[in-house]
Every structure is written in structure tokens, then in C-alpha cells.
């Protein structure tokens, strides 16, 4: 069995309308993958940055997967939310990225998007917040049925992911 270690952190996010942000993240894999150790989903703390406009989470990720096939390579999916001073949470963006497939350190910028409602919903959103959310969060990392969505671009999430591979060369995988 080949093994994959993902060791890194979700650094933070920038480019969103407001700063007080947190992130819900998860890792999705195909059927041939088995999580041996680590937490494959979580939620970061809410950061209110004092200097600059980038919110920093430094949320550690340490995952150990075993696999028998290359299909279903791990993907990290993210939901960035805004937490205001009243304690309300508002969705600010969805995004996903594949875990890099070569060993070593990688710095990844994941762009995010938000579903756009009708013009009435957009008008209400500028005044009271809120807005449409995906009913099925699988759509964040799958391409099926995306053609029905109308979305707008939001900010960027920075991740630093380190990948360690074991036994992939024994199965003939080149990288």
C-alpha cells in the first residue's frame, strides 16, 4: 500500500469585503483511499487582523493516508465565512484545490467564489447580509451540475502544504 502524508497549514485569507473571517475545511478522497491518522475536517478560529487586511489562521493540517489507487486524489475544500461583532455568520466564499502530487513544500493560493442570487437578493444582501448558499456542499469540489450556478469572485485563501510520499515508486508512479 502506498502512503501519503499531508503536513502543512491553512495560512489565512485576503481580498474579502470584511476581515473577521473563519474557514471550514475538509479533505475529500476517492474510495481507494483510507485515512490512517489525522483529522480530515475542521474549522479555524475567527481572526480579526490588527495590521494589514489579511486574516491569519495558521490552522495545522497533518494527515496520513494509505491508498491502493491513484483515482480520487485528495482535494481540500474550503468555505470562508464572515463572523461579525453580533455573532452572525455569513458565507463569503467556496473554494477547493487538489493536494499537490509531487513531494516537497508547496505554497497554494486558492481562489474562492460565492453564489449570486437574483437582483432582489443581491439588493437585500447589501443591506442585511446573508445570501444564497449551496444546499449540497459536494458541489464545491465536483463539476456535475455546476452549469446551473451563477457565481461571483471573492477573495483568496493561502495554504502551505507539504507532501511526503512512500512506496509510490514501488508501484511504478513517477514524480
Amino acid at each position, binding site marked *: 500500500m502506498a502512503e501519503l502524508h499531508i503536513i502543512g497549514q491553512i495560512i489565512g485569507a485576503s481580498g474579502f469585503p470584511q476581515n473577521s473571517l473563519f474557514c471550514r475545511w475538509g479533505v475529500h478522497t476517492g474510495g481507494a483511499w483510507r485515512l490512517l491518522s489525522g483529522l480530515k475536517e475542521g474549522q479555524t478560529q475567527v481572526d480579526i487582523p*490588527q*495590521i494589514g487586511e489579511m486574516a491569519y489562521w*495558521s*490552522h495545522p493540517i497533518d494527515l496520513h493516508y494509505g491508498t491502493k489507487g491513484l483515482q480520487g486524489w485528495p482535494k481540500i475544500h474550503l468555505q470562508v465565512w464572515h463572523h461579525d461583532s453580533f455573532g452572525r455568520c455569513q458565507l463569503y466564499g467556496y473554494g477547493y484545490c487538489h493536494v499537490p502530487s509531487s*513531494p516537497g*513544500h508547496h505554497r497554494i493560493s486558492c481562489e474562492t467564489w460565492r453564489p449570486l442570487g437574483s437582483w432582489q437578493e443581491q439588493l437585500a444582501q447589501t443591506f442585511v447580509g446573508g445570501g444564497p448558499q449551496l444546499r449540497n456542499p459536494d458541489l464545491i469540489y465536483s463539476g456535475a451540475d455546476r452549469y446551473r450556478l451563477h457565481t461571483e469572485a471573492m477573495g483568496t485563501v493561502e495554504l*502551505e502544504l*507539504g507532501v511526503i510520499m*512512500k512506496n509510490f515508486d514501488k508501484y511504478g508512479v513517477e514524480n
Partner: protein
Amino acid sequence: MATSSPSVFLLAVNGQIEGANFPEYDNLYCKYCYVYGHDWAPTTGLEEGITQITCKSSHSHRLIWNFPLETTFKSTNPYGWPQLVVSVYGPDVFGNDVVRGYGATHIPFTPGLQTRTIPMFVPEPTWRLQKFTSWLLGRRPEYTDPKVVAQGEGREVTRVRSQGFVTVSFNIMTKDMKKIGYDTGPPVPSNTQSATPDR
């Protein structure tokens, strides 16, 4: 006698806590410690320490510690890879020692010189009255054990404020990782900057 393939690999960390960038605070010192998984154990070197107290000079707004880090770890499994947890403390207006930031970063795993800029954050009280009384009494919210900063669980309900950066540089060597079968990627080209540059 034939040598059997090893089951334990070593990670040698040679680095330094270079300094910090905190625009609003001065006269700071830094405590560090390592957090690692169950399969890991330090073999030589110090697991924790405290730096000197440093202050900004008239011509530079940077705080410099230049504090050495020399530790070696052994393990059988990369899971639980060691993290360096850093906490910065300084005096407030009334002279009490309060925390100015917590931060953590994974030790790199590719040989070579790498610099990490660690964002530092403090837990934030939610109520304005609590903010005022904590400022008045010099008792800011603190973590009872700074090592929680290295964990991902239980962060969902905490509000924090990021207010500075600490720069750490690492020179890493690993032994026997390739022999056991782990591929950690190409060595880093000289002087790689990681995370955000100082502001």
C-alpha cells in the same frame, strides 16, 4: 552481519528565532517549545526555552533576538511532524507582563535553508467591558497551555486578533528517511522565503 533496513529516522533542526515585527509593542521576549506526535521523541537539544528581552532601536522598527535552536528528533512515522510553538510576551502600560502573540509552524522537511514568517495572534475577549477590565488589570486572556496553538481541534469558537509576525529560519537535515522509503521532494534552492514577507 548484514545491515537491516532502518525503521527509525532522524530529523536534525538547526535554526534560529531571528526576530519579530510588532508595530504596536516593544520590549518583547519570546518563549518557544516543540509539539510533536506520539511516534516522535527528541534525542538531543532543548525542547523549550526563553529568549532575551529586546527592544526597537532608533533606526530600525525590527525586534531582533537571533536565538539559536538546535534539536534532533527521532521517529518512525511522519505523522505528528514537530511544530515550533512560539509565544511572545511584553509589558503593558502598567508594567505587567502580558501575552502579545501566539503562533506555530511546522518544521520543514526538505534539507536546506528555509525562512518562515509566523503570524502571531492573541485570544480576543468578546465583550467590550471585558476588554476594558482586562486592559485595566493587566490580565489579558491567555491560553493555559500554549501548546494548544499547534492543534486544530477546538478552535471553532475562539476569536483572535493577529497583530505581528515572528521570523524563524531553519536548516534541516534528515537521516534514513529515503532508506525507509519516504520521498520528501527535492532539496530547497538557497534561501527560500515562505509565508508572507515582513510588513
